[in-house]
């Protein structure tokens, strides 16, 4: 039995429950959480390097309800991403959340969410993925409503309803699909194959249902509005959930569905991607354009996330080798970049109590390291070479052009321009505005907060200059698909 595969999933869940039930003291809890996330990172690494093509069956009731884990290369990349960013977020949130007493509950769900997200990464078939997908909604809901204010509760409700609505559509799609294929496991190229002939409309419907359903978590327009509302959550949660765990799980599930269950040839045959492409392009444009209108920094980043998720989803509606590589690269790069941006904004919120754009004039002189990291991440997000954002944008645009679709690079560049339009004012306000005669004392955040930010900024730069190793890994995965 390959029980080791199950460990990264179950360990954080168990440890989370332990934290929740035992209610340890502040110091002990921090130790437990830090050790768990670091341990889990190594467990993931063990799976990544030593478990090739292995299965672990959790439950098997019948052919349909067969829950098993089966890590493959894309899943492994996602798992490494999640588990490494979780460590940094742990340190960050220990400082951010402060010493308030009711945090055991928070960290309980924080750990459980990690296990669930890794479950999504390692799922071997669609029904397992669906299970973890639902669990993710449940485990993140308490994190979103952590503040307990009316606004937070409302946002949480919205989040729940949107997510469950999406999940309902997904379940409907899964049932329809299973009735045809009798197989939901992830196979490169899909399980449908030639079944699609003569049943085109059914598969079109399945595709649309699954795409819209998973699209809710991936903040696809018009199912995106839970994301800006959910910004009431504490910043580490916003950063992790809305940059990494939740939205990327949505994207990851979409990728599984597109390339491993239905298969892109089937979708191309049904021509379903023509409809979804419109939604995706709309997502890109709308997110980045409306971000310009947001005065609140976190909301600005939330809309930015919507737009950037659209970039990734492009890879799932244009079936080209290079756009697939671009999308997967952007999934990684956007995670590291956006989490940096959120961390910086969170540091400003936490230490300076400032949330709006006009309030932060001159803050770059006060918190130079934080804001330099913010600037680095912004430039990455705009996609200015030689940063990582450019690499993924390049592949995406070339993929679009390979299909002869000029609209895609145009929209990408337009969106990049808007990205510059909503991020550069932040940098410029922070560094170049404010009263120059005022003597400003440098007061950086606590090291618990600052070091994760700086590590992430450095990672962004390094990934931009030396992306070849990752590109090669993804290329190998892409070869199986195309």
């Amino acid at each position: 039995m390959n029980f080791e595969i199950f460990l990264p999933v179950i360990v954080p869940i168990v440890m989370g429950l332990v934290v929740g039930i035992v209610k340890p003291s502040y110091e002990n809890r921090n130790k437990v959480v830090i050790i768990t996330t670091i341990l889990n990172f190594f467990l993931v690494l063990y799976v990544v390097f030593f478990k090739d093509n292995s299965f672990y069956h959790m439950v098997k009731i019948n052919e349909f309800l067969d829950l098993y884990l089966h890590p493959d290369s894309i899943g492994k990349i996602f798992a490494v991403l999640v588990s490494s960013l979780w460590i940094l977020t742990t340190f960050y949130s220990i400082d951010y959340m402060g010493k308030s007493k009711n945090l055991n509950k928070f960290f309980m769900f924080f750990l459980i969410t990690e296990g669930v997200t890794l479950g999504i990464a390692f799922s071997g078939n669609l029904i397992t993925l669906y299970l973890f997908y639902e669990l993710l909604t449940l485990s993140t809901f308490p994190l979103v409503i952590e503040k307990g204010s009316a606004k937070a509760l409302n946002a949480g409700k919205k989040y729940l309803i949107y997510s469950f609505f999406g999940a309902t559509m997904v379940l409907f799609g899964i049932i329809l699909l299973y009735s045809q294929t009798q197989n939901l496991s992830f196979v490169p190229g899909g399980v449908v194959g030639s079944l699609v002939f003569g049943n085109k409309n059914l598969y079109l419907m399945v595709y649309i249902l699954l795409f819209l359903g998973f699209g809710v978590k991936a903040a696809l327009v018009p199912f995106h509005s839970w994301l800006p509302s959910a910004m009431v959550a504490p910043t580490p949660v916003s950063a992790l959930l809305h940059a990494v765990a939740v939205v990327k799980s949505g994207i990851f599930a979409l990728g599984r569905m597109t390339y491993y269950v239905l298969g892109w040839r089937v979708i191309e045959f049904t021509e379903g991607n023509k409809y979804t492409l419109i939604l995706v392009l709309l997502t890109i444009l709308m997110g980045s354009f409306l971000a310009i209108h947001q005065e609140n920094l976190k909301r600005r980043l939330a809309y930015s996330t919507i737009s950037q998720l659209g970039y990734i989803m492009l890879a799932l509606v244009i079936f080209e080798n290079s756009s697939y590589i671009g999308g997967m690269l952007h999934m990684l790069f956007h995670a590291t970049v956006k989490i940096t941006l959120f961390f910086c904004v969170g540091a400003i919120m936490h230490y300076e109590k400032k949330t709006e754009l006009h309030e932060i004039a001159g803050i770059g002189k006060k918190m130079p390291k934080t804001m330099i990291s913010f600037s680095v991440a912004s430039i990455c997000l705009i996609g200015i070479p030689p940063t990582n954002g450019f690499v993924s944008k390049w592949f995406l645009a070339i993929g679009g052009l390979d299909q002869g679709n000029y609209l895609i690079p145009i929209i990408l560049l337009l969106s990049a321009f808007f990205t510059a339009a909503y991020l550069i004012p932040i940098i410029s306000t922070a560094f170049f505005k404010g009263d120059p005669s005022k003597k400003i004392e440098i007061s950086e955040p606590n090291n618990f907060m600052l070091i994760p930010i700086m590590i992430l900024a450095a990672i962004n730069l390094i990934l931009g200059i030396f992306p070849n190793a990752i590109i090669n890994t993804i290329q190998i995965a892409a070869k199986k698909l195309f």
Partner: protein
Amino acid sequence: MDILLLFILLFPTITTTISYFVGKRNEFLRNIINISSTLINFIVVIYLFRYIKTESITYQVSYVMGTGLYLKLDAFRYIFVLITSFIWFIVNIYSSQYLFGYIHRNRYHFFFMVTYISTLGFFISENIINLFTFFEIMSFSSYPLIIHDEDDEAHEAGVTYMAMAVAGGMILLMGIFILYSYTQVLNITQLSYILPGLGYIKYVISGLLIIGFGIKAGLVPLHMWLPKAHPAAPTPASAILSGVLVKTGIFGVLITVIFLMNYDLYLSYLMVIFGFTNIFTGGILALYPVNIKRTLAYSTMSQIGYLFLGIGLIGLLKDHGYLAVYGTMFHIFNHAVFKVMLFMGVGIIYMITHELDINKLYGFGRFKPILKITFFIGFCAIIGMPGFNGYLSKTLIHHSLSEFLSQFSNFTRISIEILFTLGSSITTAYLLKLYISLFVEDNSKYYASYRRYINKRALFPMVISSFIIIYVGINPNVFENYFFNIYSIFNIDTTTIHNIHFYSLANMSSSFITIALGVFIYLKYVLPKLRRKNKNNGHLDYFNKSENWISLEDNLYIPVLKFLFLISTFILRIFDNLLMKTAAFISYSIKYAANIEFQSYTSPMEKLESITYSIYRSVKNRKNNKKEKNKIFQNLQNELKESVQQGKNKTKSKFENFENRINEHENNSKENIKSTIKDKFNNNENLHIKEKTVKKIKDSEKYTTIKKDFDETKYRMNSITYSIYIVGIVIVVVLLALIIFNS
């Protein structure tokens, strides 16, 4: 020796990092590090010359930036590299002196050096992605230089600059995307074999590239940022912006038109037209400003026009274009030298007076001989006075223009010749304005010599530049002797190359005609038309006549962009709120429907209900005895109903009965209620009572309207709403499915 190519990029990178951290504590040491590193780089570049003379050198680093780093240096690129490394060296000396009294000096020096590295990288990139990378780094790193002063003017310039630089970068990138998608190669040399063979798409590609690079070069009508940004920056930054950074745009355009597109005919014509537009727009606009740095910025635009013209002529004359190549390359070099020098001169004035207004600075340089002489040399160079370097390159461009024009009819030829002469003469006019006000007019305010302010370290670069200007002017063939190899890069037919007699009578006389015409414009237009008397001191002040002219930016670009912005905001907002608004609409429509009064006009029952309600409300409004009254009126209502059922005619008497009972219980509110009831009942023959009551009821908060509800949607999304919208969407999905199945 290939590794030296990497060295000239990496070495300043390392020293800049060191100098940034050193500069936080010791500014003197930082300046030493920066100056010496640019000097070492300059020496290395000179050393590289021996390898360039015969062939090109290349250097490759794979596994960087996705595509690898591919550097190349040949005689053509070498000219740009040489200018960059030289100008940065002297401006570095200058700015170490200039920036005293400025804040954030360390930041300035850091970005100054980053711009240097990226500019060098830009000129030696062979891979087009590397080229783009360095181009973007350069765009971004010059932003902190432009807004260094952090005042409103600088920020305004910064916004324009940033918007246009980013937009330019995106347009350029679009061109590169299409380029790569069609050719699948990235090296400029390889691209130049493939691209000319493509169909119409090559014009799309080259158009995008030219726009992208053209923005950086200040190509009219994409020049808006240039006259704003160049004056806003501190002077050393203005100098490099005008002297070197616009050349990056020229380099890009040249690469596109000549190499990538293989001397394309249409593009070359386009370049000639752009050349003339730039010469004239820049020149004419330079006549008006009162800010001396702004005049110089417009002058840069005008001089860039010569370079565009030169590029066009290279493309048109193809392998006969020996003079065009020579002239263009030479002018790139010359312009860098004299424009940087003029800016440094202005910078010295600014250092002392902190003033850029020509009306306040007049007569400043009258008794400052070194400044006066060096500025005069720069002035002579830019107007093309024989004996100075500008004359040589302008003559060459003029010659090649004549050579190209020889195939046309006399009329065309002469009219274009006149146009060219006129364009050049405007240069003389606006610089005369500058020179005469600054150095010839008399102003007692500036009699002091200010010698202690004018530091030698600031004057030294100017003296070097003037020396170069004169040396080149006296030895006109020095440039060609060194850069002979450049002709093979441009595929020039070697048999057409011949010696030029720069100081022949014909050339000199044409130059003097141009200058004379410029003096004429100065005397007949600038002096009488552009000045008016200052009431305070009687001096004839210049005023900016062009301020009220139609500006492309204010009257076209900004309104159009604002309009587009509003439209897209409106449309995208719809998508943003689509689900919420739909859900709210469905929910509140139902709610509204449920709250509607279903009343018939004839039912007495209905009337009574309305009436009792109004009574109820009128009493309720009185604050005392609230509960008691409620009871009474519930009884009243019940009895009313009964009475209606018993007989309609009896209602009136019944009401009188009620009245008595009210009197019993409510002495205080008696009058009030009485009048209300009477009011209602006396007029109950017609319908307007009913209307009135309905209106009253509607005014009360119990009833809502759709409009009211929509105002509250944002705050009042409840679970019913959500469930309704879920139902709504499920219905939509089912319908969709049905449609799909039926099709």
